[in-house]
């Protein structure tokens, strides 16, 4: 009986690379099709044949690498958004936005997340602290963009989109603030929305629209939950796409100063 010869790992990898499935996943020219050698060509192909090509060009200005130019703030804001989405989806499995008088399901679910859900407390902490950090990093990102003069032509419109994204980030943070349905959440939101209630002419209507009633109640919770997990992220992702697209169309990173 002939001895069975096992392929070496590199031979096995080569054989896998020849399969139709592999070829259907990785585009011609992808480094995963033909292997990566550290050459200029393969460095370019690594970006070009990657979904990252939607976010990053193949080449960029050297000064854009300098940490003190961007402080990575935009990228980190995006990273925090991803982190908040992941932790938020996990929390959604254990949370019901119901707050009838006497038995607030939302609050009970919060207590369960803290005590009995697998890693629930850590995920909730990550979500909460990450959200505060995101508001902070988006604000700092805006300051960085201002100080480097990056809002100047041709980037004016992208600055306007950025202001909108800041507004949406605040909206997401504020709507999420209510969801624990504890004393802190309800009264912070009561105070916060009363600020909006000072609008001239439409004060009452604006407040009613925000709260779904005259005070913060069960309807407010459901309304803000839907805004928090669906409506606002949806709008944010659309403007985020425009924001990223315009960075590349407007010539990549601004500067150097």
């Amino acid at each position, binding site marked *: 009986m002939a001895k069975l010869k096992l392929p070496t790992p590199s031979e096995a990898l080569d054989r896998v690379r020849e399969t139709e499935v592999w070829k259907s996943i990785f585009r011609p020219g992808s480094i995963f099709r033909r292997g990566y050698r550290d050459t200029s060509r393969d460095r370019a192909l690594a970006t070009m044949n990657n979904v990252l090509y939607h976010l*990053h060009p193949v080449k*960029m200005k050297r000064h854009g690498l300098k940490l003190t130019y961007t402080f990575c703030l935009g990228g980190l804001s995006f*990273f925090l958004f991803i982190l908040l989405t992941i932790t938020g989806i996990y929390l959604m499995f254990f949370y019901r936005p119901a707050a009838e008088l006497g038995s607030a399901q939302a609050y009970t679910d919060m207590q369960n997340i803290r005590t009995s859900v697998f890693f629930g407390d850590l995920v909730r902490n990550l979500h909460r*602290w990450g959200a505060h950090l995101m508001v902070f990093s988006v604000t700092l990102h805006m300051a960085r963009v201002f100080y480097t003069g990056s809002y100047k*032509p041709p980037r004016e419109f992208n600055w306007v989109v950025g202001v909108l994204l800041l507004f949406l980030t605040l909206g997401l943070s504020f709507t999420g603030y209510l969801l624990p349905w504890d004393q802190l959440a309800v009264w912070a939101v009561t105070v916060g929305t009363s600020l909006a209630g000072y609008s001239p002419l439409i004060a009452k209507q604006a407040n009613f629209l925000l709260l779904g009633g005259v005070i913060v109640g069960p309807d407010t919770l459901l309304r803000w939950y839907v805004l928090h997990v669906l409506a606002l992220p949806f709008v944010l992702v659309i403007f985020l796409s425009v924001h990223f697209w315009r960075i590349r169309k407007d010539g990549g990173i601004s500067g150097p100063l």
Partner: protein
Amino acid sequence: MARDDTPLDQETFDRVLAEELGKGVDRRVAEGRARSAAVRAARAQSGEAPAATPAAAAAATPAGDGDGATAPAAAPAAAAPAPAAAVPAAVPAAAPVAAAPVPVGAPAATLTAPERQAPPPSGNVPEPKKGAPEKHRLLALVPPEGIQRVEREQGDRINVWPHLLIEEFVAMMIVLAALTIFATFVNAPLRELANPNLTPNPSKAPWYFLGLQELLRYFHPMVAGVLFAPTLVLLALAVAPFVDRNPSIRPGDRKVAITLFTMLIMFGAVLTIIGSFFRGTGYNWVWPWAQGVFFEL
């Protein structure tokens, strides 16, 4: 660089166009060749060093094939490799074209080709020609000056992979690690169940609205609540690039803009810090080191 920005030598354009039309080539092709020649002549005149790159030299030298009008201007081209000068100007003409005779006495050529109006929609979906091959061309060869010339300084550029992507990855990991450690040891607050009949003292908004809440202590709600904070600040920020028409991005040239923005940021930060740490029971002033901090995230 947009097409209209490309400098053209009008004289050369008119002359080459007339020549080409005289040879009986299609008007569209003739315009392209005239344009190409005019761009080369204009570049030779403006003294753009034709020998900057071998390719540029090869493109620029055929301008010397013209008559005396462009010959002196093409003098720098002599510095280019000699064989390049021997390239006949008629090389691009080798492309097969459907030569539709155009009267030589065509109206005087304009600098840019006249706009070609598309025929109005007839409502009939066009049928492919009988016997035509099932193909269409996706790629055409055009002389680089014929249609448009994109000019951009390549500058000092680096590959995004690996340089930027590794930096981004490290930044992400640092933030993730710091946040995870923080979240492991510091619990997010969860107070007792909400009670609409029991107002906590003090009642504060989330921290990013505390500047606004603080402002309400000093101004009429109408001013602080709506006219001032959300509308005015957000609107002012949004229109900033349209108001600030100073093209410079050097900090030394932007003293007013930087001062105004820094004042805005400082104003917001100070109000937020006061609202967060210096306001206690009854939203009265407290010293955080003496009476404690009345602040929850």
